[in-house]
């Protein structure tokens, strides 16, 4: 009477099918690594690692070609850095305001607006950067370049500000979450001792939420490094080993996007450079993402 009326094969089969779906995520990561690794290894067979990792001239299409990846890494770093310089104060300021100062009604309206900003497609931000930020914001303040040239159609700073605008919601919302996780008891203890709101925000809440805040910044920078459309539209496409924000630069993503379009042939050195550059990008963002994940876990563990 306690045996099952018929064998429950269906249950096991369903469990297996669902496990396969979950496994797909691991397969995807493996596929990404494999797709990058193969051609990268091929690449390093004809380009010495030293030239790649330490060279500052990235001209694979020229004769003779030069494969110094630092030129495009510099572009990525420039955009991400200047973007962060804009996004960190704005994002953190907004986060502290929403967490410690804003009355509930203001919070209710501002938070969704920030989420809207997070959902704007990057091509729209790129268009905004190229057609508004560049001519109306950056160029009036910084006409031409330092060498006395004419007004430029592309500038790292314009792309950086666009990317920065993208980074603001990431920093603001994760930092705000981290601050909200700080127990009220800590704040109330400080208020009870006569601390002002500013002191509580800067001396109590901010340090307590620090690992979450740092995680948000790292994640935002990782997003900035991986951004393609904004830099294609506003930063230009010439590799330029510089961090000056008023120069046109080419980021890793821009290089990949312009070189790997449809008609490229497998097995050519050019094809391999795309993957080598992609590998560098993947490694950089992977390191930043893992760091950010660990930091988020740490702040969640402390209080939960």
């Amino acid at each position: 009477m306690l045996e099952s009326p018929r064998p429950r094969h269906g249950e096991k089969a369903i469990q297996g099918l669902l496990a396969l779906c979950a496994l797909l995520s691991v397969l995807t990561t493996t596929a990404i690594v494999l797709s990058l690794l193969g051609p990268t290894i091929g690449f390093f067979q004809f380009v010495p690692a030293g030239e790649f990792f330490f060279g500052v001239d990235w001209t694979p299409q020229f004769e003779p070609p030069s494969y110094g990846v630092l030129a495009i890494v510099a572009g990525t770093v420039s955009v991400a850095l200047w973007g962060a310089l804009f996004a960190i104060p704005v994002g953190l300021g907004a986060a502290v305001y929403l967490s410690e100062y804003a009355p509930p009604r203001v919070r209710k309206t501002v938070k969704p607006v920030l989420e809207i900003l997070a959902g704007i497609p990057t091509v729209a931000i790129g268009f905004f950067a190229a057609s508004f930020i560049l001519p109306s914001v950056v160029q009036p303040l910084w006409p031409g370049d330092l060498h006395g040239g004419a007004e430029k159609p592309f500038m790292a700073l314009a792309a950086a500000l666009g990317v920065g605008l993208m980074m603001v919601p990431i920093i603001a919302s994760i930092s705000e979450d981290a601050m909200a996780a700080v127990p009220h008891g800590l704040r109330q203890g400080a208020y009870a001792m006569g601390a002002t709101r500013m002191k509580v925000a800067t001396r109590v809440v901010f340090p307590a939420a620090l690992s979450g805040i740092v995680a948000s910044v790292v994640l935002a920078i990782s997003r900035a490094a991986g951004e393609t459309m904004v830099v294609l539209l506003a930063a230009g496409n010439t590799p330029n080993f510089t961090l000056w924000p008023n120069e046109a630069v080419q980021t890793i993503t821009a290089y990949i996007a312009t070189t790997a379009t449809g008609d490229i042939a497998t097995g050519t050195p050019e094809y391999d450079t795309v993957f080598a550059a992609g590998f560098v990008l993947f490694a950089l963002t992977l390191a930043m993402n893992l760091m950010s994940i660990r930091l988020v876990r740490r702040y969640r563990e402390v209080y939960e």
Partner: protein
Amino acid sequence: MERPAVTVRPGEFRNGSAERGKVFELRDVGVDYGGVPAVKEISMDVHRNQVTALIGPSGCGKSTLLRCLNRMNDLIPGAVVHGSLRYHGEDLYGPSVDPVQARKLIGMVFQKPNPFPKSIFDNVAFGPRVQGRKKGLEGIVEAALRRAALWDEVKDRLGDNAFGLSGGQQQRLCIARCIAVEPDTILMDEPCSALDPISTNKIEDLMVELKEEFSIVIVTHNLQQAARVSDRTAFLMVELDADEDNRWGRLVEYDETEKIFTNPADRRTEDYVSGKVG
């Protein structure tokens, strides 16, 4: 108080009343969670068409023991059940036993009413549907709601969401849901502890009615309830090991309810039921 000449040991019954079938036979049943014992060496028999109560202070493993009876401990990772537990003579933990099947025969009502976020009708019909029934559901639902003394209150609103019912009604709905599956035993884990006194009374009356058709085992920390409702009562207590690091539950005494409450054999039982210790 007079002490009887012969001490009644758990598992043996002195009275010579009419032979009753045994629903559960427990011999040295124990439960560990991740290697740490929660309950040890329980031996007792649960009889058919009776209400059997498990009482004792918090932490003595009453709910753990109850969950053994319908294989719900299987759902807790790291839970291991020792000893022998027979259900109508069959080993409940035998290798060919399907826990899903066992739970169709041994139903459970939980401490906090847990209706599904569906209509009243769908709540009660869930069990039969899951067993494959497609037709005749209206009749089954009505019968179950009547047996649970809830039909009159909900018959005009079977399509309403179950969450709209009061606590006591929700619990009776859970009982109806359980009955619809036609089990032969119903386990109740502190079924009234989340309810008001009036609902509690209704459910206690219900228990006495239901035992004509089902065998009922309840866990309760309400001594008066156990005294009012049950035919037999088992008293469990916490035992500490030598270093006082580990604690587990043990069966102290198991007998007819009247005996437990008026003339218990064990001093500890007497202290508990008279309120000297909580």
